[in-house]
Each structure stands twice: as structure tokens, then as C-alpha cells.
């Protein structure tokens, strides 16, 4: 059974084109710290007819799905999809990764797929202008929930969501926030739970269509990537526009409708995998930062398509390897001389903040989500 299953995975991801050049393993941030992990060897094993043994191995859960190897592969092998499909097969066979945070995040995402209740929107700061329905919808994703889970880390994801609303209000827009919203299913999709992902996606598409929204804006690049790249694969054309908050705000800043006060400080920018390599959005966040007067934006040596992943994804596995990747990235940010590391992804913010708290990193760099940073720089 498994021979044919891997045959299908190999065909669908074009793994048979593999030239064994090893660029994937050479590019992999995991292989750097854990040489036993090799995308090339896993693909080779699948090509030679992998057995159930491969499904039981933890290597298939180690991949960050950051897309660096996929972007560099001269044979266009889709290694991310290869990993995902192998994980689906593994889960079907009764194997799984190690859920981080004691499985809380997977559990709340499953609860989001099953609940018959409406989300509570009491987290929205009083005074901010939102509506229940409208042409512009702000998709908050898991941000309100993460506010509870990551409070002890000092990462305020609720403030991130409120900052997005504050910036939209500053542009003269009143976004709709829906209580029928559910988790986008990103983490479950990439860790092999396709059934729950489908349920969540279906409910979200119904929610957007019922709201009458023409544009949906996302705070998190992962939700954005799911809507833009994955939902259409399963459910056909969306029928509405989607944009990351930075893409939505950049034209307002360019026209001078969004004005920031002076900020004489140095910042550097972390490209999230989903926003960068997956969706090719590199300029919008940089344009927004450039719109802040006096702000000194410095690039890390590995930026844009070459950016290094924040070290963890899908909430499976957080080990020495992940921590090493994160600390290396933090060191790179500190070396630019910037006082703040700005990221466009709440999850990058969570992971890098956690690594910065580890103690043995000699960094006192602040880590901020792009909307929180920009809302703080708004002209009074």
C-alpha cells in the first residue's frame, strides 16, 4: 500500500526530477544544526520506494516548510508539498509530531472547527471603529486566543489585532470583524490533518461570503497564504480580494493618507516565509517602514527571498535545533545595529521573542509586529 502511496507523492511533487545535487540540504536551516536531517535523502528514499518505517521517523516532522529548498531546487521539486503529503500519510498511519505548548494550540484550533457558538469580540479596544458587516473585512485569525496562551512570554497578540484596526481607522476605514470567523487551518493543514482543515476552510469561506466583504485583510501571513494559495485548490475561486495588512496600508502611506511621526531609531525587518517566499510580498512592509520619517531601516545579510525562517512552524517540535536557528537569526538582527526587529508575522514574533528570553543570547533587541510598531508611530 505504501509503495503506491509514495509513488503518488513522488509524482505529484515532481520528486522524480531530483538530480541529487544536494542544494536543498545545503540550503536547509535545519540541516545546518542537525546534519542527520537531509531533504535530499528523504526524497531519495521515497524514490527508491519508501516503506512504513519512514512514516514513523521524526525527520518528517522536523522540516520547517520554510520553502528555502523549494525556491532553490533546480529541478523544481516541491519539497514543502512532499513533506506535507508524507505527514498526511504518517497521520493516517497513526503517527504524529510532538505538539508544542502541550497541544493547546492544536486543541483550540480543533475546538474552533467544532464550536456552535460565536466568538466573543470583547477584546477590541473600546473607541476603535469596527462594524459587523461591510466591504472590508479584517480576519483576525488566532490572535485573540494567542493573547491567552503567550501572555507569559510578553507577546501581546491582542494588541497586534487592535493595532491593525487602529491603522485602518487612521486611513479612514472601518473594518468588519466577524464573530463567525474560525482558525484558517494553516497549522493543521501543514501537519497532516486535512479533515479539520477542510471543515475550517469551508466555514471561513461561508463566513466571508455571508459578510458581503469584497476585500479581506489579514494580520497573519499564514492565514493570508491559506486563503490565497490553498483554499482555491480545494474550493475553487474565492470571489473576493485578499491582502496582507502591509499590502493594504502601503498605498495609503504612499498617498500620504497615513502619516507617521518621527522615529529616530534603527530597525531591521524579518521576512516571514509565507509572506516572502510563498507570496512574494517583500516591498509593502519595507515601503511602510520607509514612510516613517527619520527611521533608519537596515537590512540583514540574508533578507527577502534569502531570509531565514523564525525557526518553528505548525507547532510541531521545538528542540535545540529550532532554538539554534532562532538564536542565529537574532544575532544577525543584532549585528545590523538595529534597536528593533520588526516582523510582519505574529508567529515569527512569538518564536523569536521566546528565543530572546532564553538567556544565553547576548541581545537586547526589541521584537515587534509591524502593525504594532506602525500604530505606535502614528502621528497624534
Amino acid at each position, binding site marked *: 500500500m505504501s509503495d503506491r502511496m509514495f509513488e503518488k507523492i513522488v509524482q505529484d511533487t515532481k520528486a522524480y526530477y531530483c538530480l541529487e545535487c544536494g542544494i536543498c540540504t545545503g540550503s536547509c536551516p535545519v540541516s545546518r544544526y542537525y546534519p542527520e536531517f537531509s531533504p535530499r535523502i528523504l526524497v531519495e528514499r521515497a524514490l527508491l520506494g519508501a516503506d*512504513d518505517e519512514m512514516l514513523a521517523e521524526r525527520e518528517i516532522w522536523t522540516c520547517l516548510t520554510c520553502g528555502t529548498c523549494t525556491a532553490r531546487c533546480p529541478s523544481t521539486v516541491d519539497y514543502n508539498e512532499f513533506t506535507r503529503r508524507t505527514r498526511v500519510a504518517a497521520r*493516517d*498511519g*497513526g*503517527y504524529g509530531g510532538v*505538539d508544542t505548548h*502541550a*497541544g*493547546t494550540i*492544536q*486543541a*483550540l484550533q*480543533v*475546538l*474552533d*472547527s*467544532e*464550536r*456552535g*457558538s*460565536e*466568538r*466573543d469580540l470583547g*477584546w477590541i479596544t473600546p473607541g476603535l471603529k469596527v462594524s459587523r458587516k461591510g466591504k472590508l473585512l479584517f480576519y483576525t485569525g488566532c490572535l*485573540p*486566543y494567542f493573547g*491567552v*496562551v503567550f501572555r507569559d512570554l510578553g507577546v501581546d497578540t491582542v494588541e497586534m489585532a487592535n493595532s491593525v484596526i487602529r491603522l485602518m481607522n487612521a486611513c479612514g476605514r472601518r473594518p468588519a470583524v466577524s*464573530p463567525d470567523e474560525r482558525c484558517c487551518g494553516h497549522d493543521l493543514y501543514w501537519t497532516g490533518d486535512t479533515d479539520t482543515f477542510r471543515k475550517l476552510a469551508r466555514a471561513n469561506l461561508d463566513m466571508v461570503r455571508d459578510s458581503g466583504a469584497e476585500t479581506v485583510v489579514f494580520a497573519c501571513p499564514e492565514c493570508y497564504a491559506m486563503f490565497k494559495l490553498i483554499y482555491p485548490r480545494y474550493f475553487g475561486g474565492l470571489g473576493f480580494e485578499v491582502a496582507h495588512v502591509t499590502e493594504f496600508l502601503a498605498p495609503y502611506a504612499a498617498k500620504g493618507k497615513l502619516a507617521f511621526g518621527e522615529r529616530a531609531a534603527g530597525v531591521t525587518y524579518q521576512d516571514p516565509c509565507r509572506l516572502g517566499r510563498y507570496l512574494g510580498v517583500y516591498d509593502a512592509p519595507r515601503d511602510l517602514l520607509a514612510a516613517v520619517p527619520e527611521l533608519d531601516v537596515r537590512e540583514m545579510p540574508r533578507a527577502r527571498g534569502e531570509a531565514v525562517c523564525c525557526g518553528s512552524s505548525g507547532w510541531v517540535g521545538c528542540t535545540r535545533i529550532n532554538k539554534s536557528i532562532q538564536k542565529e537569526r537574532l544575532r544577525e538582527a543584532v549585528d545590523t545595529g538595529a534597536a528593533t526587529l520588526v516582523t510582519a508575522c505574529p508567529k515569527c514574533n512569538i518564536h523569536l521573542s521566546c528565543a530572546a528570553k532564553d538567556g544565553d543570547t547576548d541581545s537586547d533587541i526589541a521584537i515587534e509586529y509591524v502593525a504594532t510598531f506602525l500604530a505606535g508611530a502614528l502621528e497624534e
Partner: protein
Amino acid sequence: MAARAPDPKIVVFACSWYPLTAVDNAGEDGCQYPASTTVVPLECGGSLTTAALLRAFAGNADGVLVAACGEGDCHYANGNGSCAEVVDEAREIMALAGLEPGRLRLELSSNVDGGAFASLVTAFAADVGKLNGSARAKGRQKPAGMSIRKKAASRARGRSKPAGRTKGRVGAKATLGEKRAPRAKSKRRARRRGAA
């Protein structure tokens, strides 16, 4: 006459020391409590996770009762304290998801009386029943999670797991049999304590 609303489904996470002894005593003394109650034994209240609570609601639970030992009585230092923290976190997440925090109750008690346990569960089930009633009145089809029937259907559709690799699920018959001896011992000890 209107159809009687089904009994709310209650899951009880019970620490294996005092609370589970109370559950045992309730059975031995023939104390009645709603048949729609499922008791999940925990080695210690401290082994409870937020994920377990949320997954109970994502499954078919209408209400979850967490029973851990009374303050100062934990057999492993502070299991009941961390249990209370987990319950708080789950309650906050439930509130954001629109589930009434009253569906989750924490009971820290070293009372091993079966009758007290039965009346506690009965009263909690009644409260949860009221929450179900008002949720249905607001048009919520699923008060908490999905119905048992749907769950069973999705299980039937599920794939078979390979032999020789089973996840450690609480409630398997073999596990209950193995656990019997130590629990009886702890009950005797607790009873003596109760009598003293």
C-alpha cells in the same frame, strides 16, 4: 408536551487520589448521578492540560468538571495548584470562543464521600442543562461541540491504526484492570482519614 431536552453530557476529570475515591464510593454506596457522565481518571490533577479540556468541548462534552484534591492535600506537592492554572487558561480561551465559562467547573476537595460527589455532579449537570437551554433558545444548534452520533460516524469513517502501536488513551479496559489494586488501597487510606 414538549420533548424533554437530553441530559447534558458531562466529563469529569478526576485526580486518582481523593476525587476518584469519592467516585468509587459513590458507586459502592449506590449514589445516583446522571448517566450521561463520563469519568476520566488522572494520576494527579497536575497532569491535566488545557488541550484535554478544549478537546472535551470539541468532542461532545456540554460541561466539564475538574475534580482535584483540596488545598494542601496534593500527593505531589502542587498538582492541584497547576490544575487550577490550567482551568483558568481554558476558561479564558472558552470565553473568546463564545462558550460560557460556567461549562467548566473546578472542584478542589478532599471529601471522599460518594453522596457528596453524586450531588455535586447532579447540581453541575443541572446548571449546564440550563446553559444548554438558553443556548438553544438563542438558536445555537450545537451548545458546545458536535453530537455524539456525528462523532461516532466520523470515527467509523476513520482509518484503522496499525497493530502494535496504540496511543495511551485513558479508559481502555486493560488499564482500568491494572489500576484497580492501587486505587483500592488509596481508598482505604482515604476512608481511614475521613473517619478520623
